[in-house]
């Protein structure tokens, strides 16, 4: 028995210093890693092997490396290195520039688009890139609803898998023509989105179901290895048609704990990281070896209320009451200065933002009155689904959830917090299991359509693949958003989006939380890194200074 007690005591001590020991463990293991990988820790080794490796730390692993099937930023981060799209965004904004396509011409009526393609591109598996490959990819995305983004962006659904793209045809070896069933204003912008990266048809056929583990594209980096929940390694594509990368290798490491990840950055075993604890920003800024790089803001975090579920959340008055019962100004202090309070679903940096809208404000009495009017004066029990890891738009989901839990207690709403892993969270909320759920969105193409249509249109409120996890189904909003998609005149589109935001504000399917400028902490050795507002960028332009 004595031994057992000692053991208990030791495990207890272990619990207290858990954090410290975990870190030193990590540090040890990564030290040996970095020796092997010629990390910047060890310049001698680095120079000897002549290899430049960038180690990027983040909170969660990619879900799939087939970007057409995912919506999460962690997957896109990696696929953005491996694939190219027909057009790409410029380095600092969402204007497009040539990539796989060198030039493009829309028809007068906006219904056909012709793209001239590069003739000197090879996939990483050695096969040539031709117009047929573009056709193959687009046809593949139109075969199933599991190609989520295709559905979001082109209005495809189970009944109409092609959506607004009627036909994609190769009009030459290096020319491809799209025929649309209706004009689509953001079409070109959308084609630059990483989910529409062109994959090698040979590799898709070869790997079948397992393709997502063996991605083959044309991008600046070649996929090398994926150790799930640990790391993904990509190496430089020497034959890249664009600017060949400065670094030889990029390793994306998954380190779930924010604090542990930051300590690794401080100790030099990783070079860059996302998901900084807000309270660590100052520490990083005062560290002479580190820099904070702020990503331009184009995101929103929100708490969606499941309007499709029977019960209080289906009542507009209740949703408005919840908007009134949460003290947003206080809540936003949890962002430690990296976030501004949100009142609309789209960020103010985007055109079409409706600044006329007045946020609900914090008014407990009014909230109580609305609840009483809706017949819930005595309150009710409800679930709030949240996720364990930080997201760029929500650095501290659990704490934020607890703050809301406490605030809603004031109006007799009893909140049960349900915390899940990132990918579980996505799938349960897409299935509509929640009453309320946290989520956020980083804009993909700089068009309001990419926020409002994806997140709040009834077309995207389908169980199992919902982008609209509030399951908000307003025909009025739908009509406005569809009209804005087909209208090519930006001024008229702005009008439509302003109106849509008013309706959404009134119906309150969300409690909008914040727009952030997500901080990225990096070693000062990392230079020429320009974070893109869409949340990820190819790493071929950055460099590591010795």
């Amino acid at each position, binding site marked *: 028995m004595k031994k057992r007690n000692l053991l208990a005591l030791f495990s207890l001590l272990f619990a207290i210093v858990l954090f*410290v020991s975990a870190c030193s463990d990590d540090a040890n293991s990564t030290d040996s890693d970095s020796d092997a990988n010629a990390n910047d820790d060890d310049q001698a080794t680095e120079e000897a092997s002549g290899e430049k490796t960038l180690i990027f730390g983040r909170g969660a692993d990619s879900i799939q490396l087939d970007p057409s099937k995912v919506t999460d930023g962690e997957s896109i981060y990696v696929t953005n290195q491996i694939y190219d799209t027909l057009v790409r965004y410029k380095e600092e904004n969402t204007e497009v520039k040539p990539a796989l396509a060198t030039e493009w011409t829309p028809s007068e009526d906006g219904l056909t688009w012709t793209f001239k393609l590069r003739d000197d591109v090879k996939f990483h598996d050695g096969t040539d890139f031709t117009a047929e490959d573009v056709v193959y990819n687009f046809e593949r995305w139109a075969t199933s609803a599991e190609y989520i983004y295709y559905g979001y962006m082109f209005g495809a659904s189970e009944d109409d898998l092609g959506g607004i793209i009627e036909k994609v045809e190769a009009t030459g070896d290096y020319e491809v023509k799209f025929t649309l069933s209706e004009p689509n204003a953001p079409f070109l912008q959308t084609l630059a989105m990483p989910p529409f990266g062109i994959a090698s048809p040979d590799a898709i056929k070869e790997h079948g179901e397992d393709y997502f583990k063996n991605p083959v594209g044309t991008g600046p980096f070649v996929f090398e290895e994926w150790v799930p929940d640990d790391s993904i390694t990509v190496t430089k594509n020497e034959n890249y048609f664009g600017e060949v990368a400065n670094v030889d290798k990029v390793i994306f490491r998954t380190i779930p704990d924010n*604090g542990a990840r930051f300590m690794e950055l401080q100790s030099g075993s990783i070079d860059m990281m996302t998901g900084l*604890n807000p309270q660590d920003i100052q*520490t990083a800024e005062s560290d002479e070896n580190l820099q904070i790089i702020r990503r331009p803001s184009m995101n929103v975090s929100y708490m969606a209320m499941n309007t499709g579920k029977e019960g209080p959340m289906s009542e507009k008055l209740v949703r408005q009451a919840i908007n009134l019962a949460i003290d947003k100004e206080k809540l936003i*202090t949890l962002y430690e200065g990296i976030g501004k309070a949100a009142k609309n679903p789209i960020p103010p940096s985007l055109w079409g933002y409706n600044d006329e809208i007045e946020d609900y404000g914090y008014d407990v009495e009014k909230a109580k009155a609305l609840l009483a009017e809706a017949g819930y004066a005595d309150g009710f029990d409800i679930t709030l689904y949240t996720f364990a890891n930080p997201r760029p738009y929500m650095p501290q989901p659990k*704490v934020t959830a607890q703050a809301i839990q*406490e605030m809603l207690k004031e109006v007799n709403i009893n909140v049960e917090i349900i915390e899940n892993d990132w990918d579980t969270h996505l799938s349960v909320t897409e299935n509509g299991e929640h009453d309320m759920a946290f989520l956020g969105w980083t804009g993909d193409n700089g068009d309001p359509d990419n926020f409002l249509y994806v997140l709040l249109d009834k077309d995207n409120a389908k169980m199992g693949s919902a982008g609209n996890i509030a399951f908000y189904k307003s025909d009025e909003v739908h009509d406005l958003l569809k009209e804005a998609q087909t209208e090519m005149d930006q001024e008229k589109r702005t009008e439509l989006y302003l109106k849509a935001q008013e309706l959404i504000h009134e119906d309150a399917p969300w409690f909008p939380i914040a727009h952030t400028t997500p901080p990225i902490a990096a070693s000062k050795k990392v230079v020429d890194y320009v974070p893109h507002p869409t949340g990820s960028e190819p790493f071929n332009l950055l460099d590591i200074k010795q």
Partner: protein
Amino acid sequence: MHHLSLQPNPLPDPNSANIGEPEQTKSSKLWLDSAMRIVKSKTSFIGLCIILILILTAILAPIIATNSPTDQDIINRYQPPSSEHFLGTDELGRDIFSRIVYGSRISIQIGVIAVGIAMIIGVLLGGIAGYFGRWIDQIIMRIIDIMMAFPSILLAIALVAVLGPGLTNAMIAVGIVGIPQFARIVRSAVLSIKETEYIEAAKSIGAKNGRVLMQHVLPNCVAPIIVQTTLSIGTAILDAAGLSFLGLGAQPPTPEWGAMLSDGQAAIQNAPWVVAFPGLAIFFVVLGFNLLGDGLRDALDPRLKQ
């Protein structure tokens, strides 16, 4: 001299030949002896004090605590210890001192309920196995062996994964994990007791098995059960804190110590007090139960008596 013993389960002197009717004075003296030995032993006395403090804290929580354990003051989060907040504030501006004070109630609850489950089931299983022997013994003890093959925290995690996260389920899981220890100890005690003459005598005057087991055998295993219970409470609190640390036990905003550790770890560099104090609370309580458990064992084992 005959007087009514206040002890519910008088412990017979093993050398006594009395059948089921132990000599009262001797028994009381044994208890008194044991109590004296606990108080005299420095370590177990410290353990006893810690536990008394814990119990008093739990009972008087509303009086001791300076704030509500769940009241948030987001603007004043991560305040270092001060006269206003003795142990500082956490990530939501809650008073850590008050949370730890209220957390003592949860720890006691966990200790009592989890160990209660383990004890009741464990004692019954161990008693049955030891008393009846043969195939019943084989079946029960092999199941117990299987349970012991799992590291306890792993088994608890698996059980919570099946039952679903939550404080109640965590207590059940920790309780189940504690069963084997009790079963083993009780079984071995029963094995030796059932061979004694007073049991033989009880049987010979026609007492049924159930009566012999419940009335004569188990009451005489009380000493090892008490020791094991005390030691188990410490382990149970630790295991439950571990489960809460992993997010499988107490759910927010419950001020459970393990959950507080987990919530505070993000700030360990900037606000170490957020994790240090709940950690120390766990440390001292488990230490207290272990010291007392050790002391009890020494005190209740007559073989150590000089």
